[in-house]
């Protein structure tokens, strides 16, 4: 594992603060007036030239949202959010809807370059085997600034574009599927998102098509006092396959910024969606000042028989994480998977997990969750596995392990396991332990420093989940985990 060495070098190379994506880009932005009202909802919809039904859909959600209360059941603690004290729309002024890279503000291109996200197809093409290529949708604050490899994907019938574009180009698909997995009434943040979402990615894979490359969206929050509300919709038609990656970063700021996204996945008969997230929003400083509130609703609907949805997440960032990527196993013999690594350090709070809702016959699900708490952080796994009466022969296996580093942090496990079917077989196991002193001593006796030893042992602890990530992200994730744990020992 060269990553161990690389990781440690990288950790050392970072100065005072460990967050390396904390810079901000100085660029002229168009902002909606501060605050939230029906007018703002209309403003956003108008900026995007949306069809009338979309505006109505948003307004319905907004009115509904006004009657809702923020959920308080998660083990997270934060001051009341003032929803009138933020911007709901921020787009680069220069050209909010560029047709080619040449029309994009160079400052934005520079930003993505610094983040290590390739946006120029020819640069990506150079010296990379075709199967290793990744198509990127880059979302900057409220808008998608570019989507790469669109043309090439179109050849195989794959639609990959921003959701704003999809509303114009493929309104029938959007209308059919949007809100069909996460209804506008779902929960406080999802409803807010439905009212004010500004952009996000749209993917449609036609029947029988195996998407020729990895798709990805890279989310970047840049502007101050701005919430990011993106909405992603992925539809895998019968017998298709897609692997999708999501990455996120934000500048270091003293204020807390809200990110309330919605992701909907639909897998029809025999289709498979693999969704991976490397979430590295700014976590705030070690005292808990600043950082992103990451309140996200992600849900996949295995709508067709034998369909499969697999969530993999590496959560290292955000001041607060509140997210439960879930699977509705509606189709007979459908499968859901959830692989998660959640690392918390400093004053971070994580309340994350999944729901596996077995509705169809012979459905299967698997949950592997690895939580690592360090510093003064609180890290909670919260999950639901349920089998309804019809879900005969449903099977679930759940394993959630927590690792504690230091005596000021907390690790909690709150699973709900509900079975209404005798033939359903549910197995759940959870453990909590600390990094073993024996293991540390053994590694150090062989010459590894304390930090190297921790990195090695933690990488071993999360290996089962890391293996689920696409190869190129595995090494990245490994480094990220070690960086996140920097300063947690000694």
């Amino acid at each position, binding site marked *: 594992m060269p990553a161990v060495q690389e990781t440690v070098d990288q950790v050392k190379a970072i100065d005072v603060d460990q967050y390396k994506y904390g810079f901000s880009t100085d660029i002229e932005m168009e902002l909606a007036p501060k605050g939230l009202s029906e007018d703002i909802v209309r403003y956003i919809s108008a900026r995007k030239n949306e069809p009338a039904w979309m505006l109505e859909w948003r307004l319905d959600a907004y009115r509904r949202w006004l009657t809702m209360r923020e959920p308080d*059941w998660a083990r997270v603690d934060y001051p009341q959010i003032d929803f009138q004290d933020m911007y709901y729309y921020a787009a680069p002024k220069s050209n909010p809807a560029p047709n080619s890279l040449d029309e994009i503000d160079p400052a934005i291109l520079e930003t993505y370059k610094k983040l290590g996200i390739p946006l120029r197809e020819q640069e990506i093409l150079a010296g990379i085997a075709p199967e290793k290529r990744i198509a990127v949708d880059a979302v900057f604050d409220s808008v998608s600034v570019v989507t790469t490899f669109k043309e090439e994907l179109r050849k195989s019938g794959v639609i990959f574009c921003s959701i704003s574009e999809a509303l114009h180009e493929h309104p029938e698909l959007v209308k059919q599927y949007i809100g069909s997995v996460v209804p506008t009434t779902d929960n406080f943040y999802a409803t807010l998102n439905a009212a004010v979402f500004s952009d996000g990615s749209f993917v449609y894979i036609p029947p029988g098509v195996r998407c020729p490359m990895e798709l990805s969206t890279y989310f970047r929050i840049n502007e101050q006092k701005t919430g990011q509300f993106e909405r992603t919709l992925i539809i895998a038609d019968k017998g298709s396959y897609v692997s999708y990656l999501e990455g996120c970063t934000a500048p270091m700021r003293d204020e807390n910024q809200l990110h309330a996204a919605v992701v909907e996945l639909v897998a029809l008969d025999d289709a498979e969606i693999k969704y991976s997230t490397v979430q590295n929003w700014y976590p705030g400083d070690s005292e808990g000042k600043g950082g992103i509130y990451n309140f996200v609703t992600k849900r996949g609907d295995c709508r067709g028989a034998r369909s499969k949805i697999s969530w993999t997440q590496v959560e290292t960032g955000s001041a607060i994480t509140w997210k439960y990527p879930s699977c509705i196993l509606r189709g007979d013999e459908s499968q859901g998977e959830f692989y998660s690594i959640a690392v918390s350090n400093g004053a971070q709070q994580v309340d994350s997990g999944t729901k596996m809702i077995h509705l169809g016959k012979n459905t299967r699900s698997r949950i592997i969750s690895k939580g690592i708490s360090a510093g003064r952080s609180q890290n909670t796994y919260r999950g639901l596995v349920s089998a309804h009466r019809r879900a005969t022969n449903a099977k679930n296996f759940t394993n959630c392990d*927590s690792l*504690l*580093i*230091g*005596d000021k*942090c*907390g*690790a*909690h*496990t*709150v*699973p*709900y*396991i*509900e*079975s*209404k*079917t*005798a*033939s*359903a*077989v*549910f*197995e*759940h*196991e*959870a*453990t*909590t*332990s*600390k990094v073993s002193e024996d293991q540390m001593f053994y590694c150090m006796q062989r010459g590894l420093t304390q930090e190297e030893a921790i990195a090695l042992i933690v990488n071993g602890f999360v290996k089962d989940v890391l293996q689920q990530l696409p190869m190129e992200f595995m090494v990245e994730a490994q480094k990220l985990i070690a960086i996140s744990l920097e300063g947690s020992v000694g």
Partner: protein
Amino acid sequence: MNAVTPIRTPAEQALIGAFGALRDAGPAAAALESLRVDGFARFEATGLPHRRVEAWKYTDLRTMMREAKPLAGAPDASALLAAKVAVGRLPRVGGSRIVLIDGHHAPDLADGGPLPEGVSVSGLAEALVRRPELQALLAGQPATRENTAFALNNAFLTDGLLIEIAPGTAVSHALDLVFLTSDGAAKLTNARVVVIVGAGATAGLVETHLGPAGTDYQKNVVVQAIIRDGARLEHGRRQLEGSEALHLSTLEAEIGAEAHFDTLTLTSGAAVARNQLFVRFSGENARATLRGVSLLKGRQHADTTLVMDHAVPNCESRETFKHVLDGEAHGVFQGKIIVQPIAQKTDGRMMSQTIMLAEGPAMDNKPELEIFADDVACAHGCTCGELDEDLMFYLKARGIPSQEAEALLVEAFAREAIEDFGDEGLGEAVEELRAALLASVTDWMLART
């Protein structure tokens, strides 16, 4: 506490009325007055818990307790006579038998000879006058105090039993404590027993709960156990209530240094049962083993909710619960292991397993770990499914009829929770209880169809 519901259900109104009547009847036991007022205030603030109260998510008491029966008074002569017959039919497990009828101590029904040396039984109200320090104990641990069933028990606290085991005493036979609800019109029984096991003492206690079948009586029982340093308490519990009964039970235990508490509950009675355990370590190097077996059929509902609080370092707890569900029964297990920040070197392991014997039952599990200390080894496990088909086939291939094969496998399943109960403690008395519990598993299985 913010969910104040101005609309009271009939049951809530009846409970409020009953409290008023009790207060107006004058200070029957003045020493208990402040506890009653406090308990009632807590109940009044929240009302009966419902599914949106997280701790009662799966047992919506507001719906399940549609009405509150009148509070049971002391049994009259004819009730005592009938009770004597009923209690007489119940084989004793252990030594001296102590009987409570409708929550009231019935010394005349005691059996099994005089109390062993070092064991004393007294009335709670009277004891509280002599020993005001018991007040804090009766008020409950912070977690228990929040609980509505416990608050209601305090609200209607008119008396109860205090059982004390003198320090250093080794009681060779378990005390056989019988809680009987008498025949006649359905009533609400409020029962309270406090057990204090003195330092270094060893004792056993077996509770048996029973009442008339076909009557929808209600019982709210609280047992508080204080196990002082170096002491050991083996606690067995058979819940064999009548088929229509509502049974609320709270067991609170505080375990001192190097003490050991072992408890085993068999649940097979009542239409609705909620079995709560609040166990806390208050001294280091102590051990607790909490276990239970639930056998549910028809439309029975039984909820086991436990909180194991590791409040000090170096303690070990084991929680093992087995659920066997038939018909359209609904089983619930909520178990939480808390490891407080100072409780380093905690070792806690919890397991909840379910077998469903029919298509109709439902099981809800919520095993939780809440951990604030790093040097710990904690785990929980949970399984749910049918009897192993391969095993069934194997037994049938050896000529064992299906029903017997099921009984054998279920007994083996339950045995894991029962077999090492009280292993290091009381010998014979516990052996009898183990055998009785295993036999009731087999009987239950064979009587199923």
